[in-house]
């Protein structure tokens, strides 16, 4: 791999945002909306779901999933690949 390509690869990896933040944010928003709906569900909606307060439970579950992704991202923030990473990953550029 040439230096030029290597530089490009690193820049691409560094510039790409972290998908964990997007998943986390989307599910927190969904979780809040659906949990609130679940709290205010009337009896006919609960009956439709065979007596399960499905909005409440799914809302809380989505909130938790979103929280896990945000916590993961906070715990292990994305790092731009180091020179060592790039070397171990490309020890063998055959043909180029």
């Amino acid at each position, binding site marked *: 791999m040439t230096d030029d*390509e290597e530089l*490009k*690869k690193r*820049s*691409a*990896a560094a*510039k*790409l*945002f972290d*998908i964990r933040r*997007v*998943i986390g944010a*989307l*599910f927190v*928003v*969904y979780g809040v*909306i*659906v949990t609130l*709906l*679940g709290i205010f*569900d009337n009896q006919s*909606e*609960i009956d*439709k*779901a*065979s*007596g*399960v307060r*499905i*909005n409440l*439970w*799914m*809302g809380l*579950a*989505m909130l938790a*999933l979103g929280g896990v992704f945000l916590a993961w991202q906070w715990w292990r923030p994305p790092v731009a*690949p180091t020179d060592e*990473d790039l070397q*171990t*990953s*490309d*020890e*063998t*550029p*055959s*043909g*180029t």
Partner: protein
Amino acid sequence: MGGLVAEGPGLRLDLDVFDYLILAIYFATVLGIGFAARRAITSSSDFFLSGRSMPAWVTGIAFVSANLGALEIIGMAANGAQYGLMTLHYYWIGAVPAMVFLGIVMMPFYYGSKVRSVPEFLRRRFNTPTHLLNAIIFAIAQVLIAGVNLYALALILDALLNWPLWLSIVIGAAIVLTYISIGGLSSAIYNEVLQFFVILAGLLPLTIVGLVKVGGIDGLFDKVRNSDLGDAALHTWQGTANSGNPLGANWIGIVFGLGFVLSFGYWTTNFAEVQRALSAKDMSAARRTPIIGAFPKLLIPAVTVIPGLVAVVTVKGLGASSGDLTYNNSIPLLMRDLLPNGVLGVAVTGLVASFMAGMAANVSGFNTVFTYDLWQTYVRKGRSDEYYLRVGRWATVGGIIISIGTAFIASGYDNIMNYIQALFSLINAPLFATFIVGMFWKRMSAPAGFWSLLLGTLSSLTLYLLYLGDVVKFNSDLSESFWGAGLAFTTAVVVAVLVTLVTKPKPENDLRGLVYGLAGTSTSGDAVLAADKVWWRNPALLGGIAVVLALLLYIPVW
């Protein structure tokens, strides 16, 4: 096309403002990912291969997600309602071994040879005609399948939400066009990962409420036993000594037809799948990609096959040959009957998302092969990288416009699932045969590659046309696609051997890194093993666990 969704108000869902809010937030997020991914694109490699920078968990989820289109979800729930637990074969023996094989055995050749596409691998292993033939077949197939996804999306939205067909087609196409042409493969992959979680969030409440309604798993099995399906629908292998079971296939057909030819053909040579692994950041991540994907694949039937069974015991009259009560409507019917507003919006969003992700996988495979394999190789060689990046963006626009056209072709077919199965048996089975022989037999010559691919494809095409013309008869469309795939595979292998015997082999030095036993620096045993320093990242170990889990899961439902 009446097979998927029928006209009439029967399936109409009553969405409220919050459901639409959930859908709108999803559309906004998808477009936002496209614009954000644009910052990371400075070269054509960034656009087509995400700069080879993705971590394994992302590519692994995208790998399974690219397969988890809404057609697959709706179709597998329909199969669950129609055939019972034998549908599990599509997930376990029909997917997991092939995914593990791709990761352990084939990925070192794909990733290690630094090819950018499956056709490019064929060019280096065989010759230019083989490459051209495969690239053209692949490009055509991708826009056909993208059109099917688009049309099915429009039909679902028409039935569920009463949106006019043309409106759904234009909105769906415009959103996919925007995020792929701007953000390239990174955008497609990120959206696939997001979609994976959204579709699960949509299917999970359906499964939970459905199971509560029928009294848990035991209640469900009792009710199925007393239904028309009967006890046979609760077993996967019992009763496969002959074809007197719901699926109408014996164990030989299941193991060799589904488990080997169809499954290996689909998972190991379909570029729309392999491309996800090629975007991984290193060899180890590339090898783990399909294996990480195998774990969710093991569990997905819990949210597709179970709702199918719930539908068959709770929806009276399910299984009609036309109208609202066809098997294909199992999931929409349950959504209508069981989900209150809120989770209903999430479920609709999940379905819409999975149609778009399926289409995006096809379009991103198409633009890569069109740009690298057709335009750069045969039409305009040696231009600047910026030039090919531009071509890639225009190819995306062109591919989507053609998809809108093929969406209307798809409307002419009664059953789109069978249309897609037929396409797979035509395209993947001969390609897999050519591949597997070429990868393990270094003597196989370049002309043998071309002729085996061409005659293999023609043989199954001929059988398909004879079947359509009523000259040859099969029990079912499914049975035709199995025999078609088997014929194509056999023809391709036989032709490969015969042509090789009368032509000159390629010099060994040209084959290094491409053929088993002629390792290049990247594919020798040491290099491959050295990439996996930590035991829990070892592809062979992870793959072994996946296969064992598949076996264990079969035990309670053998």
